[in-house]
């Protein structure tokens, strides 16, 4: 703020000096020019009167010729000073307005307002760099969960969009280049409340710069970075970026999982995607011949993920490519039937339209479905504005990079346990296990969004539990799931994993005894999450849930009960004395 004042004053130096000089000359003129008083005797204005007269004349108020009527000489000087003062005022006010409208000055003011706003956030927040398609998805989902966000973007239009987008609460935004450490600093990188940095710009170099700056300035802060090339991924990993999300690689793995083990894929989908797919959509007939149109970043990632799976691939691309052995290649546009025929589309089980042009991708799918209606279709959507067309095309899977990144980031932010759970499932469990799990999830959530969350049993996260445990009570896992509103019912949720002393147990039994330091991952409806927070943090709700009748009510109720009990004891004591006699 001080800086703004200094800038303003420095810009106003010339106008202020002009006003001072014009006033000084005017006042001096009135003092020097001889006049007459009401009796006609010679009289001179004092400085007091002259300053009074110039003050009201300069501001065009005009009380008249005070204190005595002017002589012609004085009137002539008044003429000069009227124009002089009015012009100098207009000049300085104009200058001042110009300063306020100056782009640089406005930027400076916005910057200071932003810094103030960020400093005022007294709760944990994420620093999001880049408010494009990906960034806006992440921000809207984070704010929906009540998490604070600070946004930096290089384009003013996107920062303006922050105010027009329907976000749940106010998000401070700054238009600046986030790859500059100064900007990151102003956006609260070093604030004790900053809990993570999310570089989500569409420029890999910028993401790289942001990640390295935040890793150097605040090494402990987790960084979840978006990247679109293998080189950047390797670079980011080299200095310890916590999570690196390449939408093409992520989606290629996701797709490979869908084909290899459809139910594990569904578990993954339900846990990471808010709009999950139905149980019936698991694919059975997926092994065989697949056609991939477009051998760009996505095509390459797909080829890598499909390696080792019982699938043979044909790749179609406009440009001739040098592709490794055991993959056939057809040159030409996938939008034409000839090319598709050449790639043996009639025998194929699946088609992936993965070019970077939305219209072409849709055209490929339409043409191919005419040739082979049973085809399983996967289409890449590049622009989120094309949503209506893609949902009308009724393809089996739509790959939208921004959506993938946003879902991944959200599941990382919800709890790091989700990643561990998925890893355990992929390595130790089979598809049948996953099938039962999906059925259970479906019975809990139905078509609604399946949320997931985690608790650690400790004083900070679960104070009510912690207190009961120090009192020596034995607590089991099922107390998390009781509905405080009606104890016979269970909350629509169930435990997915219990992590104790670095060992993960999947789907723990409900009678498992709790120990301090346990980390428990739950999934269910988000409503259950809010109820569960009441159970673990509010002592009264907790006691109600475990059925401790003595502890019910507030402080007043307990005091009243204890007093009543004491009075009863006092009444009974004398009687017992008598009986002893």
């Amino acid at each position, binding site marked *: 703020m001080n800086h703004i004042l*200094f*800038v303003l*004053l*420095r*810009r106003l130096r010339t106008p*202020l*000096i002009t006003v001072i000089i014009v006033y000084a000359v005017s006042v*001096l003129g009135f003092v020097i020019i001889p006049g007459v008083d009401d009796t006609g005797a010679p009289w001179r204005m004092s*400085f*007091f009167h002259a300053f009074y007269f110039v003050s009201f004349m300069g501001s065009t108020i005009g009380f008249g010729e005070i204190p005595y009527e002017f002589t012609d000489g004085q009137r002539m000087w008044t003429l000069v000073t009227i124009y002089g003062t009015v012009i100098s005022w207009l000049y300085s006010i104009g200058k001042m307005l110009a300063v306020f409208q100056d782009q640089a000055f406005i930027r400076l003011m916005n910057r200071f307002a932003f810094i103030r706003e960020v400093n005022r956030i007294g709760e944990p927040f994420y620093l999001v760099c880049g408010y494009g398609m990906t960034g806006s998805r992440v921000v809207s989902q984070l704010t929906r969960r009540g998490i604070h966000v600070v946004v930096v973007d290089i384009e003013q239009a996107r920062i303006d969009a922050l105010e027009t987008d329907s976000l749940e609460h106010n998000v401070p935004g700054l238009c600046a280049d986030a790859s500059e450490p100064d900007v990151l600093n102003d956006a609260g990188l070093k604030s004790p409340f900053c809990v993570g940095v999310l570089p989500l710009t569409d420029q890999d170099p910028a993401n790289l710069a942001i990640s390295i700056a935040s890793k150097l300035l605040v090494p402990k802060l987790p960084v979840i970075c978006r990247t679109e090339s293998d080189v950047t991924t390797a670079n980011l990993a080299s200095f310890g970026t916590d999570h690196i999300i390449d939408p093409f690689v992520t989606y290629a793995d996701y797709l490979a999982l869908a084909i290899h083990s459809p139910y594990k894929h569904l578990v993954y989908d339900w846990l990471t995607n808010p709009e999950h797919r139905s149980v019936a959509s698991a694919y059975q007939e997926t092994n065989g011949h697949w056609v991939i149109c477009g051998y760009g970043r996505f095509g390459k990632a797909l080829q890598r993920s499909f390696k080792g799976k019982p699938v043979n691939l044909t790749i179609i691309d406009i440009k001739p490519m040098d592709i490794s052995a055991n993959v056939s290649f057809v040159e030409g546009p996938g939008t034409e039937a000839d090319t598709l025929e050449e790639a043996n589309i009639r025998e194929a089980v699946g088609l992936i339209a993965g070019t970077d042009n939305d219209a072409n991708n849709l055209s490929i799918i339409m043409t191919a479905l005419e040739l082979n209606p049973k085809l399983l279709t996967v289409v890449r959507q590049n622009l989120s504005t094309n949503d209506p067309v893609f949902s009308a095309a009724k393809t089996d899977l739509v790959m939208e990079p921004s959506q993938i990144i946003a879902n991944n980031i959200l599941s990382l932010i919800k709890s790091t346990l989700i990643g561990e759970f998925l890893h355990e499932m992929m390595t130790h469990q089979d598809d049948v296990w996953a099938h039962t799990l999906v059925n259970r999830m479906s019975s809990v959530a139905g078509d609604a969004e399946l949320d997931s969350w985690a608790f650690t049993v400790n004083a900070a996260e679960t104070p009510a539990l912690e207190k009961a445990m120090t009192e020596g009570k034995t607590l089991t896992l099922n107390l998390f799931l009781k509905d405080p509103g009606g104890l016979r019912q269970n909350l629509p949720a169930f435990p997915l994993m219990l992590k104790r002393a670095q060992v993960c147990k999947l789907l723990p039994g409900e009678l498992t005894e709790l120990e301090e330091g346990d980390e428990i991952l739950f999934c269910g409806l988000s409503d259950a999450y809010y109820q569960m927070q009441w159970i673990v943090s509010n002592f009264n709700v907790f006691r109600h849930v475990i059925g401790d009748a003595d502890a019910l009510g507030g402080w007043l109720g307990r005091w009243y009960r204890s007093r009543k009990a004491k009075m009863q004891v006092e009444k009974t004591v004398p009687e017992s004395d008598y009986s002893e006699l």
Partner: protein
Amino acid sequence: MNREKVVFAFFIVLALTINFGFFIGDIGNPDHHNVYELFAAIVVSLIATVLKFGDRTHIGAVLLATSLVADLQLVAAAVVWGYGAQISAVGLDEAAMASVVSLSAGALLANITSVILLMVETIMIRR
């Protein structure tokens, strides 16, 4: 030679000299203190203040502060003079004149500080 520096130093020194000229003389004697001189001292002091705006160095900030002190003292002196000459029943008597001059003496001290700071800054410049 820097024209801006000349103007800057000119006004700071002029503020001091005019102020001194007004101050010197018998403290209670109105004949020794010219009203035009006080007027000139106020105007020059105001201009010197505005010239100091926007200098973000430490010495610049102190210069601005001393200048604001001088303004305050001189304006107070002018108000006392105006009150004595126009409003007070006894007119501009010896007591009123004495307080005007002593206020301007305070401004003089502030102006001397300004000039000393200016000299310090000048001496510290190395080529």
